Structures are given as structure tokens and as C-alpha cells.
């Protein structure tokens, strides 16, 4: 099994809502919930140093409030005005707990999506 770190309990993330968590090493991760599915990404906007949790999320589409870049939360793919995808965070659901796997962010893999 891979190294993994406990991130949160699923009931900490509201239905069709989002919440930001900080790992021990200072990495910030945003967890978004769509029904019973959970998705985790780098908490910072791929555009500038802006926290995505300040933006808007309707259960499907995440919008950064700063310049309105948008993403499909299920895939992290860009929508609308976005010029870069979200950086995904490898994650496992174990019972009611969410774990992030090492390495947390695989930036190199993102561009090739």
C-alpha cells in the first residue's frame, strides 16, 4: 500500500460544498463534494495565489472569484475562461475517512491530461 495521510472525515465536507484542509507540511488541499462523491485538488487557483475556497461551487462547477476561471470538479478540466486545469490530489476513501496519498500533487501529470 502507498503512504497515506488522513485528511478529514467525509461529514466535514457539506453536501455539494467544499472545504480547505492544510497538511502538516503546509500543503493546502481543497475537497469538494458532489452528492456522495469526493474530489481533492490543490487549494490554490492555477492562475494566481488565490484560494479556491473563496470562490463559488454549485456541486458540479467550481468558479474562482478572482477572474472567473471555471472547472468541472469531476475531472478538474477547464471550462469557460480557464486557461489551465486544476491540479489533482491523489486520494482514497476508506470508510468515512479521506486520505491523501504520496506524492500529494503530481503536477507533471496534469498537463498531459
Amino acid at each position, binding site marked *: 500500500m502507498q503512504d497515506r495521510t488522513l485528511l478529514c472525515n467525509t461529514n466535514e465536507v457539506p453536501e455539494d460544498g467544499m472545504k480547505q484542509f492544510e497538511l502538516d507540511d503546509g500543503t493546502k488541499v481543497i475537497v469538494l463534494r458532489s452528492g456522495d462523491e469526493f474530489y481533492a485538488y490543490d487549494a490554490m487557483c492555477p*492562475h*494566481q*495565489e*488565490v484560494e479556491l475556497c473563496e470562490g*463559488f461551487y*454549485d456541486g458540479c462547477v467550481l*468558479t474562482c*472569484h*478572482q*477572474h*472567473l*476561471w*471555471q472547472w468541472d470538479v469531476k475531472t478538474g478540466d477547464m471550462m*469557460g*475562461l480557464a*486557461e489551465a486545469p486544476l491540479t489533482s490530489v491523489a486520494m482514497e476513501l476508506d470508510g468515512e475517512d479521506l486520505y491523501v496519498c504520496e506524492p500529494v500533487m503530481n503536477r507533471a501529470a496534469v498537463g498531459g491530461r
Partner: protein
Amino acid sequence: MMKVQVKARNRAFGFDTGVGESVLYSGLRTGVALPYECATGTCGTCKAKLIEGELDDQWPEAPGRKYLKSDQGEFLMCQCAAKTDLSIEIGNFVSEATPGAVIPAKFTGIVGGSRMLTPDVKAFTVELDRSTEFDAGQFVAVRFPGIGGYRGYSMVNFERRTQTLEFVVKKLPGGGVSEWLFDNEPTGVELEIFGPLGSATFYPGMGKNVLCIAGGSGIAGMMSIFSRGCQENYFADHQGYLFFGVRTANDAFYLDELAAFKAKHPENLHITVALSTEAVTDEVKAAFPGLEFDTGFVHEVAARKMKDHYDNIVAYLAGPPPAVDAAIRTLVLEARLSADSIRYDKFS
């Protein structure tokens, strides 16, 4: 003159820059659509990465720097000038300026006259050294004598080609320009101007219904948009909705001008003044029968009244950042407008 070499996400290009001139302004004036929003150091949108060369940062305390990774050589193009030839990198796609768009340039202007609209709102006109074109909804960066840096101000008037620009300024207590403008008679003072700037623009050719949500002095650009719409008879076959948020009825201004727009197209224009901290009195309603008045924050009033009217809409938002953010949230989450039909200027 020095050279700036730029590597953007999609292409490489270069332009010349002068001593003390911001990298952003020199690029824009040569017709390159560099990324920016406020052009005055607050938003962080103009960030670039220094690869080689030396910069003169004219405002190291600029609030927009909080969006940068400075340990990676990122800087604000609107606040930095070149000391040597530069090589820089921009993470965004950068296109040539759209054909037909007005390329911004440097002007000098003389303040023509000013008048108080409320105790903390002042309007003034500026005569430029030559005529220019601009689009309704645009702004210029203005430098006042003896005050550091530029400030953004949106044009209130609209004429396709003009030498006179009209502005309205809401006093920010303690602010550099605010304190000077409200303590002095500005007539005859010479200003440095760079513009026109901004992409929250309105063109009759777009064929959409228009929604404007303005907080306080954010009404400036909306006056320009409604002027153009009325001049070109746009509202004969398009709807125009305008929401103007102020604290109390005494803080409102341009009500006569707004009533005059309404009188031109009584069927299709819908103009509401939202008072955030005061109930609407019968007296106010009687004084402006063409206008509607409501109580609440302007984005809430707009959300209430716009239900079922979002068809074929382009939305313009301007004013203090919290008011604009609240309106954007409403339009994205409740009205489900697409991001490219929302245009905004945050007056930060």
C-alpha cells in the same frame, strides 16, 4: 529606450519601454494585449516572471503583490519599470489587441471644472491635449501632481471621439487623491492620463439585453453604457436593467440623468436605486416617479427583481470589491450566467 522580450504561453514578442514607464503601459501602448485588470497595483492580474534584467519597482508595497510568488521572481508589470533590457515570462495566453479596439496612449489633461454631487461625491471634467476614442465602460489611469502612482477612473460620458472626459469620484477618507480633490478646487490642474483601459465594454453590435449592477461610484461606467445605448437607440429593442446601490437616499446622485434615460425608453429601461441602510420614503418616490427605489444591498435587490429576466443578458458590475464579488456570486450561482457574459471592474 530599452527592450522587453516576452515569452507568453502561446508566443514570444517584444516591445520598447522608456525610463520610468511601467512595463504594462509600454506593452499596451504598442498594441500587445498584456493581462491586466486594475492597472494600478491592487489586483495582481498583471503578474509576470523576471528571467533576466533589472527592474525598478515603483511601489514595493502594492497590495497586488500578495498574489505573487516573489521568491520565484514574479512582479507586477503595472508597477515596475525597466532599468535594463528585460526578458520576462507570462503564464497566460497573450494576443495582439483586438482589431478595432482603441490602443491606449499617454495624454496630458487639464481639469475643466468640478461640482459636488453629494458631500462625498465630486464630478469633474478633463480636457485632453488631443481627442481620443474609447468604449462605453472603459476607464483611464490618472496621475495627479504630487501624488504617487496612478488611480483608475471610469468615464461617465460617451462620445465616440472626444477631447473631454467626465469623471465622478467618491471620497475615500484618508486617500491621497480623495483628500486632495475634496480639499481643493481642481480646475486648471494638469494631469497625466493613460488609457483608455478595461474590457468591461458595451457595443450595440452585441445584441444582448443589458444588466448593470453598480455600487456607489461604480455608476460611472454604467452612465457611459446607458448614454451610448440611448444615443444609438439600442434600448428601442433591447431591455436595459440598472441597479444603483447607495447607503441612503442622500448618498444617491445622477438621479436626474437616470430619470432622463428612463423617459427615453420607458418600456424597456428598468432603473432601481437600492438603499442599503434606510427605508424608502414616499417623498423620494414622488420626486423621481420614473425610477424605482428599494431597500437592501444592491446585489440582493437585483437578484430579487431580475428573477426570470436573465434571458440573453450581458452583465456589467462595478464598485467596491465586496459589492462586485457579491454580485458575481449571485450571477454565477443563482442566475447561472456563463462567466464570459459577466464583465466587471473592481474599484480596489
